[in-house]
């Protein structure tokens, strides 16, 4: 029998390809698959081509990239903090980015230039990282980092609530609230150009730390005695999460649960070591978020459903199911 871990990659690759194809193929305007291919190849109806290339393609690319970043950072953080409940929001990075974006919306910077909101979100993520590093100090214990992360996340959350509270009119509050729900609607290649470099940097910083994360299975002393430079590992991890997740949240808004559930879903199909989860979680996150974004378009609703709402609804049952299984296992 082929071990479960060998079957994981083919399944993930198929899932990612299917998700990408569906994301490009499905939308409000029905375009048959043949014409989709023609339009992508540069022929066919100019309107269909515009819909595909300027609306659906960036949306699919962002879905894959943001999902991959969230899945990967969830897996890396769970490994680093040795806590299966960790996800990007644990370190306050998502909230920090969201606060940056909300500030941009609140002061109307977002209308002033289309890049202002994502830039503010990335600045927010980096600022929250700086505060986190100050609060956590040099201690290597995961608990200090989690506590500092909760503090940073809570302050950012309070800032977001304050912005909603003080919004000059209901429309401004609506704008903030709907951004906070997370969405990939109406994103262009400008957004792709903003998010992709950040996400690529985040992936580069996180994806090659597998060995250090594995060594941390033995605790900090055990890992250090195996030759791991813990301070460097931690700096790389924090920077990777802040830059990558900051870039992702900047274009998609706050999308929860992907970073939490993807590593959980995939762990039983690996040897359960943190390194074995990094790349699969990136692929799994890409597939999950893109499929959720397809679901948003397919589910009939008066207002288009927001992506963050769908991932939350998807996430909870999956998580509960796994909780049930883990309780028997551990």
């Amino acid at each position: 029998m082929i071990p479960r871990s060998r079957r994981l990659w083919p399944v993930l690759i198929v899932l990612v390809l299917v998700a990408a194809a569906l994301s490009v193929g499905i939308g409000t305007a029905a375009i048959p698959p043949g014409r989709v291919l023609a339009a992508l190849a540069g022929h066919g109806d100019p309107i269909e081509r515009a819909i595909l290339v300027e609306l659906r393609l960036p949306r699919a690319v962002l879905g894959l990239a943001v999902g991959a970043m969230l899945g990967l950072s969830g897996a890396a953080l769970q490994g680093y903090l040795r806590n299966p409940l960790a996800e990007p929001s644990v370190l306050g990075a998502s909230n920090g980015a969201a606060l940056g974006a909300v500030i941009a919306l609140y002061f109307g910077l977002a209308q002033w230039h289309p890049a202002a909101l994502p830039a503010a979100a990335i600045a927010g993520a980096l600022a929250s990282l700086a505060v986190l590093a100050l609060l956590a100090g040099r201690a290597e214990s995961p608990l200090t980092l989690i506590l500092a992360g909760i503090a940073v996340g809570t302050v950012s959350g309070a800032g977001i609530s304050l912005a909603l509270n003080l919004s000059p009119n209901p429309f401004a509050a609506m704008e903030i609230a709907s951004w906070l729900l997370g969405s990939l609607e109406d994103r262009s290649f400008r957004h792709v150009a903003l998010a992709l470099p950040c996400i690529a940097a985040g992936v580069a910083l996180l994806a090659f730390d597998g060995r250090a994360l594995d060594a941390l299975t033995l605790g900090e002393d055990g890992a250090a005695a195996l030759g791991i430079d813990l301070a460097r590992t931690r700096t790389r991890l924090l920077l990777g999460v802040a830059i990558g997740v900051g870039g992702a949240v900047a274009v998609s808004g706050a999308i929860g649960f992907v970073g939490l559930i993807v590593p959980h879903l995939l762990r039983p199909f690996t040897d359960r070591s943190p390194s074995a989860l990094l790349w699969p979680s990136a692929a799994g996150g890409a597939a999950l978020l893109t499929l959720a974004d397809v679901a948003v378009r397919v589910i009939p609703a008066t207002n288009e459903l927001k992506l963050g709402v769908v991932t939350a609804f998807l996430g909870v049952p999956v998580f509960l199911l796994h909780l049930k299984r883990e309780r028997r296992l551990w």
Partner: protein
Amino acid sequence: MVTIAADALAVTLGGRDVVAGVSVRIGAGLTGILGPNGAGKSTLVRALLGLVPSRGSVRVDDEPVAAMSRATLARRIAYLPQGQAVHWPVSAERLVMLGRLPHLGPLSHPGEADRAAVRRAMTVAEVDHLADRPATELSGGERARVLLARALAVEAPALIADEPLASLDPAHQIRGMEILRTQADAGATVLAVLHDLTLAARFCDRLLVMDGGRLVADGAPDAVLTPELLGAVYGITGWFGDDPRLVVPMHRLR
């Protein structure tokens, strides 16, 4: 052979002097560290490995530990930490394979030599049959043996083991000491924190005794384990036997 030398080594944790002015030179052979709970044994070995901020100096083969990279030190000295931490339900074999990390180049995968080292270590620690079991589901004693195998898999010329016998049954305690003895006989520098006085007396070449952060005795087991020392350090009386060598704790003095 690896020589580990500390000079006026001191560690202060939370305002308390946990290790104070320890100067010692440890070479080949099996050296045991004894002492009551809280005497600073674990902190001393962590300081020797540069895992805790310390004053004074530690040199490994006449090279300051502070100037060595963690990777170099990891290949020179294998370390079995106290507490049997295992954070993910990886298989026992996968856990032992972690011992090969110091030998892997960047982005390379464990090769046949690494797998052979893992098999050797698991055979020596008698944990072959546990290979596929999740490490988190093992009993305390089984896990202790798997973690000892993990430290052996490094195949470093020196081994520092912090309470390697904790939660082992009597047979495996003897086996644990035999393993350390074999390593030492093969020329390795072995340093082990121990609590069992008889096993320490029977197997070790040299004993260090810590009390209140200080090194209070250092020498051959016969010279170190005296009724006076047991009284002063542990506050107990002991029953001593010569053949076989026995040191059995009898009564509390205080």
